[in-house]
């Protein structure tokens, strides 16, 4: 009876001193089937986003006035594979261009957030003292304000000063990227705190390297695994964040299609045109799920001790 308990006596976690080789990483990653499927889905989505111009079944902003009669067309009607939205625009075409917007916003915002976070975390962990104190208090402040309401207030300020149309791609990227650095900063700081005590760091210092060189050439490459994993998961978060902003009307502005703003009018039409509500959300769900599984696989592959 007691033997059925999953207890492994004396299980000592193996701590790897050096980073696993590229081959090891690939072998471990290959074993993680959901992550492989996730990677395939992401590549597929990215190809659609890149090739939206060539692949599009119609212009995403073209209103099919011939067939449209004031209500959304059902899937399959008049060569609209997934039907149209409430304005008679082809849903599949808008989804493709929506993929382009949603994925690029996520990519750029994460690059920005990760860069800021890595830089601040690195100098915070390396120097310690008052630099560390100030940066960590700033992180606490950002983390203690609920992110979505804060983003909404900031977008409202931008929209309030000029007009809603000014909420373009660049503004959304900068706002999301500028607020998504604290988690990375904490992560990088933690690994720098231990890395700076290691022998190779001391050696690098002893031969007279400048601080900047030690931080970016000697320490940072050793902290890269958790950053990659965090960046992957962050992409998933940002896709959801951007689509939520756009859904509430304070993100990407129509007529530009984003998966979020395509859903904005779907609620009022949900009784007559459920497909207009189903497909954009399904795209978000599948993409985010794929990215989360990819992140999970990367974590297992790059650093099995992490968690």
């Amino acid at each position, binding site marked *: 009876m007691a033997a059925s*308990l999953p*207890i492994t006596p004396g299980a000592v976690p193996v701590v790897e001193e050096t980073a696993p080789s590229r081959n090891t990483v690939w072998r471990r990653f290959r074993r993680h089937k959901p992550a492989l499927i996730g990677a395939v889905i992401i590549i597929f989505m990215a190809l659609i986003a890149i090739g939206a111009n060539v692949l599009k079944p119609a212009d995403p902003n073209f209103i099919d006035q011939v067939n449209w009669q004031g209500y959304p067309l059902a899937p399959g009607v008049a060569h609209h594979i997934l039907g149209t939205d409430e304005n008679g625009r082809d849903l599949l075409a808008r989804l493709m261009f929506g993929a382009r917007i949603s994925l690029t916003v996520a990519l750029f915002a994460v690059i920005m957030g990760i860069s800021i976070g890595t830089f601040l975390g690195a100098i915070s962990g390396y120097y310690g003292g008052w630099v560390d104190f100030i940066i960590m208090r700033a992180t606490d402040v950002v983390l203690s*304000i*609920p992110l979505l*309401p804060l983003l909404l207030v*900031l977008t409202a*300020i931008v929209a309030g000063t000029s007009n809603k149309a000014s909420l373009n791609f660049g503004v959304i990227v900068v706002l999301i990227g500028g607020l998504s650095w604290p988690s990375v900063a904490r992560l990088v700081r933690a690994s720098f705190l231990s890395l700076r005590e290691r022998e190779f760091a001391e050696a690098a210092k002893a031969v007279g390297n400048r601080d900047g060189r030690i931080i970016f050439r000697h320490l940072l490459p050793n902290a890269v695994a958790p950053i990659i994993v965090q960046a992957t998961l962050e992409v998933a978060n940002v896709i959801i964040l951007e689509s939520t902003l756009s859904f509430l009307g304070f993100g990407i502005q129509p007529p530009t299609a984003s998966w979020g703003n395509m*859903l904005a009018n779907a*609620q009022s039409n949900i009784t007559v045109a459920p497909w207009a509500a189903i497909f954009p*959300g399904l795209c978000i769900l599948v993409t985010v799920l794929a990215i989360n599984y990819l992140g999970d696989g990367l974590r297992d592959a790059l650093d099995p001790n992490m968690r």
Partner: protein
Amino acid sequence: MSIVLFTILQYAPGGPLTPYLQNPHITEADIIRLKHNLGLDQPGYVQYFKWLFQVVRGDFGWSMSNSEPVSQAILERLPATLTLMGCAFVFSLAIGVTAGIISAVRQYSWLDYTVTTLAFFGQSMPVFWFALMMQLAFSVVGITAFGYKFSLPSAGISSLDNFDFWDRLQHLVLPTVVLSLLFIAQWSRFMRSSMLEVVRTDYMRTAAAKGVSQRAVILKHGLKNALIPLVTVIALSLPGLFAGAVVTETIFAWPGMGRLFINALGQFDFALLMGYMMLTSFLVITFNLVADLCYAWLDPRVKYN
């Protein structure tokens, strides 16, 4: 932190008078007079301390979009939000912890795989879309399950004027489920790994060796210890709970703080936005402090100086 929020809102170009600037009937002279009356022509730090002093006394200023004091507008809607958040909290905790324990105890069984897969779906689900799908399934179409045709109300807090428990409960179901999803997913995953760690410890083996039944080992010795780190995770998910409430309340027309916030947003009512941000941040910080103290109380190994 209040300084940061204040600066963001006050020094945003346009500032707190934005709604008036767009009104063609208000002249330049009116704006200057308004600014003077509201003390907006004084230096920033004077405004900040005046404002801070008022906030400490519970005065968040005048909400222009609701034509009532901000504190009153928020307090009126606070009970609705707290009801929703409280229900979602209890629901998430119950389901999340149970799922996590089952998943850990039966590790690598089909039950474990189902729970972890569902948790992944829950974490990847855009809340607003899940809400729409729930409305579609349970209010618009009215799915028949367990021999019962679901037709739950999709909007509002009640459809009767006087209080009716059954009516309220029906309105509460969908928003609660929607708001809970993300936290069930996160907490069950955390609970699973926390439980797996505890199961490997020596005191669990000792308890099992003493002949304590498996159920008692897991629930009495294991659960107690596995729950401790969950306290921190719960405190950290509080900002997410507020953010989720904003979305959920908007979609389900729930008369709470979140919807108030979205309405104020559309009308650029910065006094109210400011009050909302201050209140939620304050609650988050307080909760984190309480969680830290709870942690020290629950786990005697942790000591604070």
